[in-house]
């Protein structure tokens, strides 16, 4: 029997992007944990390996699936392109392999979530740690079986390596592609197949939304995208530099159906601003959003529909009735009582947000009304049945003690209400050093502790509720709750430790 010669093109990602998650929130949890949490428990409970079919991954990050689809559309066959998890790489990479494509989320650990969690909890964020481990595996496989194969990296975290040739060399990466790349993926992989030279850093090229290729297999967490980009220019966000483009309903439905066929009944419907789907300029179109949800809800086998980001300005364009209809369509017959939505408030100080490019995000809201405007929209979401999940950024350039004070008061104003609030430490998106926990003041820590008072109360409930809705067995739900208690105890102790050391 001859050894398998490998697939010509192998696509992969680290475990945090390719696990067998049950919920969208599992993925968020995985990206928030650090190696201070026991790897055995995290690996088995939070991010268990996804099932395989013929050694291939049944689920993979949407970005990988799009590249796979672009290659298949361009004439590559299933035998030429394989999407596999890390564990399968030794069997997938062989002498015939000419390219290993990697989707990276946190290759250097410079993202805001990683720097915040590692700073507070200690250890290394799992996305960073698992990426490092994946690269070691890829390098070893290449050395052993395909010394001439090129390693090409893309994905949402690729910007972290685009300006760092030395780090790329240390990781063994030959090429980095930045941004969406359906427009030139085919040409790049053809060149790699022919062993033609390519530049070290390759800018990705997009295709029009209507030409985005539909996926051919399931995605991690059943993720489908309904729009790309945001375009409002906030200085602290990479997607703010990409104008919002809405995918056609037919493409979204096709992607959902592919996921259903792959066994992913619970779908994550992603956008940088869910309520802006179909908007004309900044003018939201509630009927378009509701129409899409109705279409998806009507598909046979769809379970819980989960969304991630929304912006206060867009929520304001929906009536109370429309928001309630959105909630009902998301939940369907699953019985979920706490659908959540993430809203980037960033700071209660409108002036600070505007100074960091947030003017378009704020729309016509005056600086001193930004906090109260967001609070009103959050309470409207709560009344519509959502559990809002607010993100705040501490240490934005130009932040004053008064800004921190205003945000602290704003956080405290939600006492007794169903809400979660996650402050993260500012990290520049063009490189440069992130804010460290050492630079936080006592007031910052007071704000973090106030926010986590809500989180410690509501995250376990959210988890219980959402897990029950998607059919996670009771024993596993109990284990999650126990792990959550342990994490909460650990975090409370870390907060106390850091706050005690903080400057005035």
């Amino acid at each position: 029997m001859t050894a398998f010669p490998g697939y010509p093109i192998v696509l992969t990602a680290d475990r945090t992007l390719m696990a067998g998650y049950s919920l969208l929130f599992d993925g968020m949890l995985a990206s928030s944990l650090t190696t201070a949490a026991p790897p055995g428990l995290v690996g088995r409970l939070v991010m268990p390996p996804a099932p395989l079919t013929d050694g291939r991954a049944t689920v993979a990050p949407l970005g990988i699936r799009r590249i796979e689809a672009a290659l298949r559309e361009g004439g590559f066959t299933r035998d030429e392109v394989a999407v596999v998890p890390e564990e399968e790489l030794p069997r997938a990479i062989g002498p015939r392999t000419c390219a290993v494509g990697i989707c990276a989320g946190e290759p250097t650990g410079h993202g805001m979530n990683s720097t915040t969690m590692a700073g507070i909890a200690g250890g290394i964020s799992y996305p960073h740690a698992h990426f490092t481990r994946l690269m070691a595996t890829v390098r070893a496989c290449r050395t052993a079986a395909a010394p001439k194969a090129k390693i090409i990296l893309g994905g949402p975290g690729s910007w972290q390596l685009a300006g760092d040739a030395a780090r790329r060399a240390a990781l063994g990466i030959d090429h980095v592609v930045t941004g969406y790349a359906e427009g030139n993926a085919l040409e790049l992989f053809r060149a790699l197949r022919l062993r033609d030279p390519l530049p070290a850093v390759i800018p990705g090229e997009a295709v029009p939304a209507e030409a985005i290729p539909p996926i051919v297999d399931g995605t991690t967490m059943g993720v489908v995208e309904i729009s790309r980009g945001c375009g409002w220019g906030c200085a602290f966000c990479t997607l703010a530099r990409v104008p919002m483009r809405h995918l056609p309903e037919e493409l979204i439905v096709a992607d959902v159906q592919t996921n259903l066929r792959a066994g992913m009944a619970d779908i994550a419907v992603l956008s940088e601003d869910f309520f802006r789907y179909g908007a004309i300029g900044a003018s939201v179109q509630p009927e378009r959003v509701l129409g899409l949800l109705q279409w998806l809800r009507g598909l046979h086998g769809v379970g819980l529909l989960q969304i991630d980001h929304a912006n206060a300005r867009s929520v304001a364009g929906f009536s109370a009735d429309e928001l309630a209809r959105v909630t009902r369509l998301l939940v369907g017959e699953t019985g979920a009582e706490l659908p959540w939505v993430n809203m980037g408030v960033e700071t209660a100080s409108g002036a600070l947000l505007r100074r960091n490019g947030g003017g378009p995000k704020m729309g016509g809201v005056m600086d001193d009304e930004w906090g109260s405007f967001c609070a009103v929209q959050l309470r409207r979401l709560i009344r519509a049945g959502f559990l809002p999940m607010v993100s705040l950024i501490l240490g934005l350039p130009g932040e004053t003690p008064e800004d921190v004070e205003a945000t602290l008061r704003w956080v405290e104003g939600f006492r007794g209400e169903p809400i979660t609030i996650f402050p993260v430490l500012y990290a520049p998106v063009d490189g440069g050093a992130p804010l460290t926990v050492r630079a936080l003041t006592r007031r910052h820590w007071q704000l973090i502790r106030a926010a986590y008072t809500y989180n410690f109360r509501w995250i376990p409930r959210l988890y219980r509720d959402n897990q029950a809705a998607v059919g996670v067995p009771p024993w596993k739900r109990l284990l999650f709750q126990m792990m959550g208690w342990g994490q909460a105890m650990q975090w409370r102790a870390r907060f106390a430790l850091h706050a005690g050391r903080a400057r005035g």
Partner: protein
Amino acid sequence: MTQRAIPHLASALETAVAHLLSRREPEGFWRGRLSASALATATAVSALLLGGEAADRPLIRAGIAWLRAAQRADGGWGDTPESPSNLPTTLLVLAAFRLAGEPDSAADRRYAVARAGRTPAEWRAAILRSYGADRTFAVPILMHGALAGLTPWAGIPDLPFELAAVPRAWYPALRLRVVSYALPALIAVGLLLDDRRPPRHPLLRAARRLAAPRVLDTLARIQPEHGGFLEAAPLTAFVAMALIGRFGAAHPVARRCLAFLRDGVRADGSWPIDTDLSVWVTTNALTALGAAGALEAIDVPAMRRWVAARQYTAEHPYTGAAPGGWGWTHRPGGVPDADDTAGAMLALARLGETAPLAAGARWLRGLQNRDGGWPTFCRGWGRLPFDTSAPDVTAHAVRALRAAGVGDAARRRGMAYLEAAQGADGAWTPLWFGNQATADGTNRTYGTARVLRAYAVLAPDALAAHRGVAWLVGAQREDGGWGGGVEAPSTIEETALALSALADWPQAPGVAEALTRGTAYLLRRIEAGSWTISAPIGLYFARLWYDEALYPVVWTVEALGRMRHIFGEAVDR
């Protein structure tokens, strides 16, 4: 002329404008961000090491760690983290390691050995060869190597520092082998070399003894208050090293140099090649916002005041330049130059502020060379490239004079220079921009695009203009973008500049299609989110590469703004 609307152009422009606006400083201007530099970091670390202050040890450790992490796979170091290794930077880093007591391993030396040979004498010869007649940078590099014990003192060419004691007006006649901006290095490095290898001729020895106090006075007089010569870490570090080597760390000029270096370090342990290009990027940004019809988004009166306040109102001590010009930065180490003066004048004209233009125009006219072109800093200083007329600078200057409504004769002479400077293929080669992917490192797309902007307003029907347009159209790549030359891969920067230039000739053969394809390329990059990653196309003094984070953003806003006029508005859905 309005051509068929391009879908999504309006929203892409809106996003690009929003991003540009988000990069402002709280005061409203743009600072930008220059790439980290191994060369600047190596020289800064070495100067701090020679300074011997215990408090600098954390900076030195962080700098060495950054250099270690920046080493390329071939064992060498490049100018920017995305630049290929080169010998001068590699030798400077090895010298820094030596001074820090870090053993430089065979792996560290392998690039230098492969490029220049095994012996220190071979390295010295290679450095001298790479800079030819220009000693501006070669001699300080060799001095740095000698201070670290890496290369020998013997064989380093002399720097005649005593010539800095003669009246400034005589400099052009002396035909110095260093460029005008390098006066501090001429003095400080020359003094150290004189100390280590005193001249044999008694008359020269005596002349130098007499000149030394005077040139040291000159050095102190031209040093900015914060200590940084030209805001440049390498130049300032070379001066510090030389003075410490000759007079010890207590020398007041050296102390101020070290203070500047401490102030300029970045959080990751690196130093950029220069502090910032704030005036340059701000005036470019204002012009771009004007082209995009987005000036209402900024506080125009405040920005008028900001730009106007950067105009020098007294003779500049560094170059002896008359009042009226602008430098590249708002910081004390800036020096007036023709490119930044032109940029500021064009931005002010766009903002409707005309009062400072007359003095600016006077200053520009005073700088014009006999050949009709404009140099960067000093008229007729010498024949080294950075002191002679340059097409990109000249094109900018004639546009500024036109905006000021003066200088007809000067403009005519400028245009004649541009015509003479055009290459046989119809392109122009700029001085201050290059492209690492072209065979000779030049960036003819930048040069041609910049010169065509001058032709568009001063001689649109000239044959030279049409040859330039034809070259630019022919240089467009298959993907619709432009690179630094016909053979270089497309970048956002060059594509945006080419589009902005061709927008003035929509009726010329091939231009309409080139604009459509070029705009489509920009939109693909913007929608992919890959449009803000800057390419190292900037050339600093001594042809050091740098990239500036704002270049792709500023030039994209300008290009899309101009394209909107051509293609009209299309409602995005």
